[in-house]
């Protein structure tokens, strides 16, 4: 056949990546969340200036601003970026019927699935990189020369890893139910469950260790005193970046977990009861292992379901 070569897997894989990237960069909701992310980052940068305008105190230089602020990205941000990047990736193809001409091409479903996943990763890599460069330059201009800038890429890596967990959850719902709405709402349910309800259970019942083994913000502990006076540390998959940086800067940190003593606290100030202590290195390793296991399990289930899907659309 003239003009056709039996090209390799890489060519077909990159064709799917291109197909998905062209789709991603033209989504209006993607630009919406990007504008919100830049607005929030700007707000974080301008925070001390706003405070200064209110209190009249001068803005102080802070050489750790960029690293301490995790370059402007956090749990709900990861969740939102995951939603807008992949909520339509597979379910949208089924809903719109575009899955039919796509799967009629000589590309295996595994290639299509992996291509879409990689395109989501690339989209986030570029987006987060821009945000981090913006935050770093902004931090330098507003708060003076910054320390430990060599750790910024680690923060980027952590942010990507944390978002991939949410991506795998959104993909799982999208593939199982072939509905973008269920993909978004299902993931939102898990986010709310782990972050809000989970935190309440952790603080009040002292059973926060459970949260260490599920995706999200994880258990809350602190270093150097109870949560009111110490440095807070969250153990979950949303905090891999900051925890990695903290471990590199403070390898001997121990994280102590507390619960509120409800009986004594009812008489005045909250009374914290220390439960247990563990090394920060253990926290980091556990969160990475948990993230990896969930990512592999969710992505494998999604791939398996997609590969066997009957295209009735």
């Amino acid at each position: 056949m003239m003009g056709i070569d039996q090209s390799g897997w890489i060519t077909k894989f990159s064709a799917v990546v291109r197909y998905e990237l062209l789709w991603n960069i033209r989504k209006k909701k993607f630009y919406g969340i990007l504008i919100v992310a830049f607005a929030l980052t700007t707000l974080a940068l301008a925070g001390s200036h706003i405070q200064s305008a209110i209190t009249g105190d001068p803005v102080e230089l802070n050489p750790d601003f960029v690293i301490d602020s995790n370059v402007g990205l956090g749990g709900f941000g990861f969740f939102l970026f995951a939603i807008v990047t992949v909520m339509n990736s597979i379910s949208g193809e089924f809903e719109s019927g575009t899955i039919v001409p796509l799967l009629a091409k000589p590309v295996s479903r595994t290639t299509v699935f992996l291509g879409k996943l990689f395109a989501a990763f690339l989209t986030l890599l570029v987006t987060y990189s821009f945000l981090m460069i913006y935050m770093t330059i902004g931090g330098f201009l507003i708060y003076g020369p910054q320390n430990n800038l060599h750790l910024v890429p680690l923060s980027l890596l952590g942010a990507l890893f944390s978002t991939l967990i949410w991506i795998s959850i959104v993909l799982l719902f999208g593939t199982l139910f072939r509905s973008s709405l269920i993909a978004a709402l299902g993931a939102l349910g898990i986010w709310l469950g782990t972050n809000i309800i989970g935190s309440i259970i952790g603080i009040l019942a002292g059973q926060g260790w459970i949260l260490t083994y599920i995706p999200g913000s994880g258990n809350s502990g602190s270093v150097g005193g109870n949560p009111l006076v110490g440095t807070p540390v969250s153990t979950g998959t949303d905090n891999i970046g900051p925890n990695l940086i903290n471990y590199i800067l403070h390898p001997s940190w121990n994280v102590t977990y507390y619960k509120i003593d409800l009986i004594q606290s009812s008489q005045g100030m909250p009374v914290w009861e220390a439960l247990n202590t563990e090394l920060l290195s253990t926290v980091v390793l556990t969160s990475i292992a948990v993230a990896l296991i969930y990512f592999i399990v969710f992505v494998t289930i999604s791939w398996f379901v997609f590969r066997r899907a009957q295209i009735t659309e």
Partner: protein
Amino acid sequence: MDLAVEVSNLTKRYGSLVAVDDLDLEVKLHTIHGFLGPNGAGKTTTIKMLIGLLKPDSGLVKVLGQELDWDKPSLRTNVGYMPELPKLPKYLKGVELLDVYGRMFGMSKEKRESQSRELLKLVGLEGRGDDLVGTYSKGMQQRLGLAQALLNEPKLVILDEPSLGLDPIGMVEVRDIIKKLAKTDITVFLSSHLLNEVEQVCSHITVIDKGVALASGSIEEISSKLKAPLEIEAEVDNLSEAVIGNLKKLSFVKDVFEDGNSLRIKLGTREDVRSEVSQAISSGGGIILSINLKGGSLEDIFLNLFAKNKGGEQ
């Protein structure tokens, strides 16, 4: 290998509904094969099994000599497929879509560019390639759907209702494209419920209902098997009411259609009655320029088959 598609004992169920029931089908290479049936007959389900979009419950499917295996991409390398009312990604431009699909076929950059240019021109979308698919009308999306099906210069093109949603001019244009394909080496498997369209472009047909093939073969073979009534087509000068009146008096003439100098005479017999017809025309003052005996129309074949099928059920 002289078959483009070979299907035997193919069955597909959706719960208790049997969409395709023990279907046998053969599509010869280098033919235009019509796949006819009413809505819900199982045409699209069968096609989706040929492409690997649906997994058969049982049966054997061979496409271009290769046995179908679940999610076997190489099977589709030489196959072009235009789905019924194709849904194409609206975020891509026309040329981007053809370029990405071309990459999936492993086509070189030069080939992708030249094919895109040629095909957009062929389907009447020249000058609209840089617009987003989302801005295309339904008819334009249908045309783009046809272009992407021909992108890889396939050996087999499967077209599922290619004229659906097109205006009359678009339908004629699509038909002309299919006729052009007939002059090449390409095999076309055309699913349609438009008998007129199939009659104009197809040499072979398979008629399907409720997932079962009622008949398959060349139109002449099926017509002969079914003993469908014949037709006479004649070109006549001095065509007058007297000629039409004489023809209608003949006992074996069921109906007469007049279009300028052309006459189409539907017969109630399979006998060659051209001499009697010629005599009736001449005695009415008509001058016969040509007179031909034709097989039954596709409409007759179709109605005949469904009448038999219904009779068989009762």
